[in-house]
């Protein structure tokens, strides 16, 4: 389960609108408690995929990931998830998302239609399938 405040979700939605018609991406920092995660902050990251591909692809480089990992540790937090947007596409994880996803992290996807943030979903790789398939992960929000 991922607990996250409406305020942080609002920040993610705003990022999806700023990046439109391209995909946005960023980190969700928080605390791990067994399989439960609670989000404390989010941090946008520059989409490092090729400019011409950014409308349907995002890449976070190892260097950016490293900086985020160090940032989290300084704040006594963990990276608990990754968010990105699907411009003019449903917030369903794509096969590309699945094949590039990593275990444990929550994957929040926001659909952004005509520049306005729409529905969002949260998925996690299913340990029961040896981390080969996404399943919806419960998300608990508060004001």
């Amino acid at each position, binding site marked *: 389960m991922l607990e996250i405040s409406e305020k942080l979700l609002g920040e993610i939605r705003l990022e999806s609108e700023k990046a439109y018609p391209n995909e946005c991406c960023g980190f969700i920092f928080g605390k791990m408690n067994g399989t439960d995660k609670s989000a404390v902050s989010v941090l946008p990251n520059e989409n490092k*995929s090729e400019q011409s591909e950014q409308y349907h692809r995002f890449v976070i480089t190892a260097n950016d*990931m490293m900086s985020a990992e160090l940032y989290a540790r300084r704040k006594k937090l963990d990276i608990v998830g990754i968010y990105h947007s699907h*411009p003019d596409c449903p917030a369903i994880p794509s096969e590309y998302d699945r094949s590039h996803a990593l275990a444990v992290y929550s994957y929040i996807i926001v659909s952004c239609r005509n520049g306005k943030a729409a529905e969002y979903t949260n998925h996690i790789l299913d340990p029961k399938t040896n981390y080969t398939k996404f399943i919806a992960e419960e998300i608990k929000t508060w004001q």
Partner: protein
Amino acid sequence: MAVTVLIPTTLRMFTGHKSELTLDGATIGEVIKSLSDEYPETKKVLFGGDGKLRDFVNVFVGENNIRDLNGYDTPVKDGDEVMLIPAIAGGSPVESVLGERLGDKLTNSEIKRYSRHLLLKEIGVKGQRRLKGAKVLIVGMGGLGTPLAQYLAAAGVGTLGLIDFDEVEESNLQRQVIHGSRDIGRPKVASAKDSIKQINPLVKVETYNERLTKDNALDLIGQYDIVADASDNYQTRYLVNDACVLLGKPDVFGAMYQFEGQAAVYYAKEGPCYRCMYPAPPPAGLVPSCAMGGVVGVLPGIIGTVQANEVIKLIVGGGEPLVGRLVLFDAWKMKWRQLNICKDPRCPICGEKPTITDLEEYDYEDFCGIKAKEEEEAEVEGIEPKELKRRLDAGEKITIIDVREPHERAIAKFPNAIIIPIGQLDRRQDELDPDADTVFVCKEGKRSILAVRTLLEAGYKGAAYNLKGGTNAWSRDVDSSFPQY
């Protein structure tokens, strides 16, 4: 040296949920070895079969990637911080493979014709115009090509390319319903074009009455948005896949045999390719073709329509394309199954370090074992049907062994033949007279080659021959009353 290894959240399940480990080693290589020794579970995710770290895992010392330092030989000192960092990527589902391209505005007549598509919000005017603007190449105009061509034409795909070198035969008509009795002897692509024009005269049909080869594949496939592989042999399947990967096109695949079929979308941009799933073909001759093993006539109709449906989804965009999944169908049991298939980072064409970058230099015949098989076949002595007839008429003592299946013998019995299945040749070889010539007979002269080799390998000392071209050649050259099938 004792260094601190920082473990990101995603890998902690393999390190007893510890976020930091203290490990020994003078170099990164040694530290990584300590890690895998102490936490063997990490090997599964971090290391490939070659014992090296997988490419998507990056190792940092402090804030420097070891790729920019000395790789595994990068020295570390007490108190250094080492981090294992995975790279992250993702993206939206496949929109239309056509991107933003649309066909011309729909005419009123087209609006009427495609009304049932236009009523679907998932297709609508935009989807129908994408279909109108789309170009699809169908490789093979046989069983699978039939429903592909018929349904894609009816759906309003703007341009259909058909490639097949073959002509319509009577034995095709049981399943290749795009061709009719009057088309026997005509090029399949010509016959199919006529049928398509009957279904939908608005479709532009390009025909290629030739074989798809490595010399024409890139040029031809390059002119189309999607390829539907409706071929019946491994050489063509690998060739279609490779050309599609190199050109960034989806390969909508289908295959079948007897009562079973399969379909998948091999699209390297979005998921695995055919080589990720099947790194190598089975040995030549192990898997018989439909011509040898038979196929229930409805099966290509089912598998080919699955392919047509996937083609339409890729053009219209949306839905859940059959990327990264393989659908298996058993018509006799009426069962569908689905397998998830993964991209292979070591795939020789769509992997991280591809070795196949040019079709010209690749030997498809050798890869598919065709050359080796031809050489093996050449080693077995054959006899022409007319020669066998002449010697039988001359009263020579010849033993004829029919190795066909019982249900084939029910179609027609070969005169004066003894029945011995290939599997029993070894133990029943003393039933043969080594002083007389023995001739093996099957439908096409292929299983009989296997029979001769089996017998000789079992130590038989007499002379054994294969009837060239089998009973079908016997019918053509000697006795037309013997049915061809």
